[in-house]
């Protein structure tokens, strides 16, 4: 009953490349989100446009999408608007980098030395619970009315989610892997680089994802407190002018900013933490 097949198949059968080309064509079927996302968008927008009258919401409370688009269109044609966008992007981005960077450094430091964590963490939590908006005068005294106070606000708000995730992530490293490196004489910093950091990546990316959203929020809230430019200022201004459609146009722009940042972060994650993708089980 012995069966032997002596003809060795090539290890890359022609079928393989065929599959590749088929894949490229079937993108829409393999990634249905490519049409589902716009589809949902269209449904929501249409429902909003025509449903709004039915449920009796006033335009000055919730404008119709068509009005928002009108307003958005006008804004996009305005040089000032791009100035505001640029200012807020700058604040959010610089704040994000600072906040997230500080969280990464402090989180690393904290998670490596238990005693530092136990000592500092309560203060960090305590500080985070303080509504930063209430501290506005302090912020202004310390950081002035310029960009800095908004950058600080963005940094402070994006800091905490990142910190918690960094600490938790650095802790989540597999003990066996750490033991393995230890035996080969790895220093703390080598263990950190070779095991802890890679293991923490899913946590870190979650932190980045939350962080960028909060950095944008922070910049906007900072602008609420006292600013002469930026999308947050524009929000206040449109609201003050009873230009609710204009306000929603700004909100849409903020959303798009957040979305863009989110996709960039997820893209980087796929590149950097590739092994997590590859080890997934088929059909589970």
């Amino acid at each position, binding site marked *: 009953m012995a069966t032997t097949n002596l003809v060795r198949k090539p290890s890359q059968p022609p079928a393989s490349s065929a599959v590749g080309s088929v894949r490229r064509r079937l993108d829409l079927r393999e990634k249905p989100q490519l049409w589902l996302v716009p589809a949902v968008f269209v449904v929501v927008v249409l429902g909003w446009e025509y449903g709004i009258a039915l449920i009796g919401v006033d335009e000055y*409370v919730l404008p119709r999408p068509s009005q928002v688009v009108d307003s958005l269109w006008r804004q996009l044609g305005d040089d000032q608007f791009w100035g505001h966008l640029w200012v807020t992007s700058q604040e959010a981005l610089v704040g994000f980098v600072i906040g997230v960077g500080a969280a990464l450094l402090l989180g690393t430091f904290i998670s490596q030395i238990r005693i530092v964590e136990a000592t500092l963490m309560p203060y960090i939590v305590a500080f985070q619970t303080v509504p930063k908006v209430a501290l506005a005068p302090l912020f202004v*005294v310390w950081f002035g009315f310029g960009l800095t106070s908004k950058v600080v606000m963005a940094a402070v708000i994006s800091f905490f989610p990142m910190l918690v995730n960094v600490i938790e992530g650095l802790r989540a490293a597999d003990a066996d892997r750490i033991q393995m490196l230890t035996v080969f004489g790895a220093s703390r910093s080598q263990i950190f680089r070779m095991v802890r950091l890679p293991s923490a990546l899913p946590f870190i990316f979650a932190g980045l994802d939350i962080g960028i959203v909060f950095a944008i929020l922070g910049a906007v809230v900072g602008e609420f407190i006292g600013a002469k430019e930026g999308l947050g200022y524009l929000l206040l201004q449109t609201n003050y002018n009873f*230009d609710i459609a204009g306000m929603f146009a700004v909100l849409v722009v903020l959303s798009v900013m957040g979305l863009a940042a989110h996709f960039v972060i997820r893209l980087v994650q796929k590149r950097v933490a590739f092994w997590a993708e590859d080890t997934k089980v088929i059909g589970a």
Partner: protein
Amino acid sequence: GGGADEGAAAGDGAKEAKVTFAIASAVIGPKEEVAVYAVAKELGYFAEEKLTVDTINADGSVAALQAVASGSGDITAADSGSVLGAAEKNVPVKAIGGLVQNWPWVMAVKPDSTITGGADLRGKKIGVISLASGSAPYARAYVKAAGLDPAKDVELLPVGVGAQAAAALKDGKVDMLALYTQAYAVIENSGIALKYLANPDIFTGIRSLSFSVGARDFEAKRDVYERFLRAAYKAMLFSAKNPEAAMRIGYKVFPQILAGKAVDERLAADTKSLTAWLKTATPASGTPEQFGDWGAISDQEWAKTQAYTKEAGQITGDVDLKKLWDPSLLSGANNFDKAAVLGKAATYTAG
């Protein structure tokens, strides 16, 4: 703008100075920053005084007073109640001139409302901006003046300003609103009709915004502040005479007021808002030609304001007015050529 023909500007010995004007609000709108700052800047009134003036936005009167007291700003137009509160807490501030002299708060109802005055208020809901804002003590005082108990006979609901307040009134969540006149102008501009109730006499003479500065370097900067006030009052007069021109100037200095819209689209409405604001900051009657004695606050007005502020809970005792109120700059501040300003206002066309 020309120099000497518009009156006694800064003397030859005056030094160039930089001043930061703290706007006591997070937004820029058709109010003091337009009528005072933008006009004075654009027409060269500040330049004539050898002043370079810049603005910052502080989120409310308290923040603005903190800013001038700590030196982040030099001068602000802050709510007199808050100025008194600051003085009571030993915050080093000084009031140096009045700005808003007519009571800016007023009650409004839907046009078809049956409420006509204080007597109809029992059991009603009043929308205030927030319970921690000038609008709440105003509503309470209004109710009390009608002989009702504000704690029992009415309910105050925080509804904010703008769309939120308008919606609350329209949906019947509140029966009336207690906002400032300029906030109503914004609501009316969006096509919502309102009916206003008359304020009882008790509110006449209570002061709202006043120019305030930090007390610590007051003596050193006396002269600078006088020059600022003079430019400011000149601008007020100009704006009172020609609000539309003032508004156009406002757009030029603060293009962000437009928030992406065209001047023509907004001008009428904003001019209306600015006019509403100007009415509170100029004598209740008379024409701009008759206006004078800018910035004066009588002892009686201070007493009334102080009593009201105490009632509102912003201060608990009497404030040493001699320390707080320094009217000594006003004579110099009023020393300008009214006619020149009025003339310019009458013929102004935006360049």
